[in-house]
């Protein structure tokens, strides 16, 4: 090391510490480097594997990446006079998609509230059963929505109900976990106060816990609503009703119906951005207070 030559003479103890520190840094850097190399190798080989199992290669596909949107957009531009009419035509499906998301967020949110309270330490109605409710939430979170939706379509036929059930089930698990984390940090004093005057479990939760956690729960609920709008569009594409289904039909027609595809794209884009913005705004207000 150059700087040791210029520094004041040091006692052997300091020098030992110094060399040990440098040794430690070197070793940490080496471990970091090895991890990085391993990670890069994993990514590269993973990508090559994925490419090998793909129908088209990466390099061959790149030029085509823009050709499909260009084709769609140019055809839509030629028929741009139709767009407003098509947007109006697909508005009911959009309303259905948003309704699916809203109903499933509501139902899932209500179930999540109950599950969260039942599985939170200190608040649970039956403390011994908390692991059971937790596992229930884990399981409903882990099942992909598409599985439930497709099975219910087989039983119930098409329509919005299978999608609602599927999304609501997933929402119950996902929100339940977040809700329970919030409820864990709630102040137990109001609950104890209510218990001391003889309030039942329902009253303690309704009057003691809910007012404390409501802003955070609502904020998480809104975030989930955003996610569910997207999920409901995707589920429509894979099986059920709503705007996703319209999109699939229009895509299957292919050329000649691309103006319709663009109209649906536009509707979906505007809705998602609008809902994102609104919920973002509402969430900041909820969490940071009225004046934020």
């Amino acid at each position: 090391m150059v700087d040791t030559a210029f520094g004041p003479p040091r006692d052997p103890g300091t020098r030992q510490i110094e060399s040990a520190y440098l040794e430690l840094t070197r070793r940490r850097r080496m471990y970091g480097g090895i991890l990085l190399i391993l990670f890069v190798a994993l990514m590269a080989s993973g990508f090559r594997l994925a490419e090998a199992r793909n129908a088209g290669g990466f390099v061959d596909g790149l030029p085509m990446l823009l050709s499909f949107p260009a084709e769609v957009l140019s055809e839509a531009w030629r028929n741009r006079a139709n767009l407003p009419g098509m947007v109006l035509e697909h508005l009911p499906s959009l309303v259905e998609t948003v309704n699916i998301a809203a109903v499933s967020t509501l139902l899932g949110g209500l179930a999540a509230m109950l599950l969260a309270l039942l599985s939170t330490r200190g608040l649970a109605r039956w403390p011994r059963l908390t692991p059971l409710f937790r596992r229930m939430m884990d399981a409903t979170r882990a099942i992909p929505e598409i599985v439930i939706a497709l099975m219910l379509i087989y039983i119930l036929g098409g329509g919005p109900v299978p999608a609602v059930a599927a999304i609501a089930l997933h929402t119950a698990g996902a929100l339940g976990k977040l809700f329970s984390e919030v409820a864990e940090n709630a102040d137990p004093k109001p609950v104890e106060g209510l218990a001391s005057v003889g309030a039942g479990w329902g009253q303690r939760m309704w009057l003691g816990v809910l007012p404390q956690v409501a802003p955070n729960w609502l904020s998480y609920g809104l975030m989930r609503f955003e996610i569910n709008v997207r999920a409901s569009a995707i589920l429509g594409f894979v099986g059920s009703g709503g705007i996703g289904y319209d999109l699939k039909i229009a895509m299957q027609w292919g050329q000649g119906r691309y103006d319709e595809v663009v109209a649906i794209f536009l509707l979906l884009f505007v809705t998602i951005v609008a809902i994102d913005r609104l919920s973002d705004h509402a969430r900041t207000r909820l969490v940071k207070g009225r004046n934020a």
Partner: protein
Amino acid sequence: MTDATPMTAAHPAAPILAGFARRRMISFAVPLAILAYLAYAAVAFDLAGLASRARMDNAAVLLSDFWRHKTHVTRDNRSGKLTVAVEGEAKGTWPEGRLPDFVTTAGDTTTIDLGRGHRVVYDPQGARYLHPEAGTIAIRPDGNRLLLDAPEPLPDWINASDSRVSITTGAGRFAYTRSKVETFRYAAGWPLFFFTLDSPFAHMSWPELAASALWGQRVDPDRPNIAAMAHDFWTNSMWRHGDVIWAMFETVLMAFLGTFGAAIISLPLAFLAASNMNPLGPLRFGLRRVFDFIRGVDALIWTIVLARAFGPGPMTGSLAILLTDTGSFGKLFSEALENIDEKQVEGLRSTGANTLQRARFGVIPQVTPVLLSQVLYFLESNTRGATVIGAIVGGGIGLLLTQAIQTQKDWEDVAYYMVLIVLTVIAMDSLSGWLRRKLIKGA
């Protein structure tokens, strides 16, 4: 209340009381509004018509397929040939000369034990169903007709015509036509999950399998039994474990490549979009709008566009995840970068470190735990998302799942895939949780 008028004007408790009144109103209005909305939705979704459209028989088929299977015992009435096949499928057919325990043959007579005292006998004259309570139901062909000898009046579980007699009881199902006679025997469990019947291991019990794997005579002289077992399991034609595990791996691969690829791409972009890192306002604004655009267009549309360019497969899926998550990560990362402690950067600047060094030693160590925790959280949720994306682009377990559901008969496969997906998601969940705790505590 005589003092009501002055109280509203000056009493210090007035705003609090007004707040109480408002809250009381809200606590009634909100549930009412929710109920009203749900009522509207019930009408809009035609909940009333749902009952008539619901196919409860489909539900019964689905549920019974989930946990039990049936074995078809069929005799061709013209040739007298007997076939025993699991689910009636060719790949589940019992090999010549081997029969399951519940089928016994003696000469031309075959006896099928359905359990609980129910038995079916095929003999050269016809067939008999031996019911423990109702007695014997005998069927005998007579020219072009079938003669039925059954207790009168005919119970409702027997359905008889001149050309076909079918019997459905809790123990099994039986059908006699002129060309063939068929009995379905139900048993719990997924059939032939480990080995198909053409494998020598299918006919062994668990202890026998263990013994054969450890010290038994080699079934195939070229390789040890345990390797042969692994091979037979992997290539099981009924369940196709090899393909399924590969598909599951593809799905996890999609999530892995997409999530980490997005993280790698969005980290430098996030530096450019953070107000305390990049002084160029217009560039920041532009990048943020790009992130907004990517997130707004939504995974569904990106997936469709990418699938057009690259065709179906796991690479398309991972690129779709990568693209969508780049938007989310760009936003999250730049927000995290804006919230760092400036003091460390200041300190580095005072030693004469350049921009890159300040970023590497002043910023990265601060944000790594936050960013990694977000990335791992996304990895977990993308594992689930990759199933859906796989269903759209046609890759991974999502494809197998949609195919199995669309054929509407292999529900045991659906159950298998579901269990596999749920286990994988839970495993990824605990893995990412463990890593997160490790990284954040260790930092």
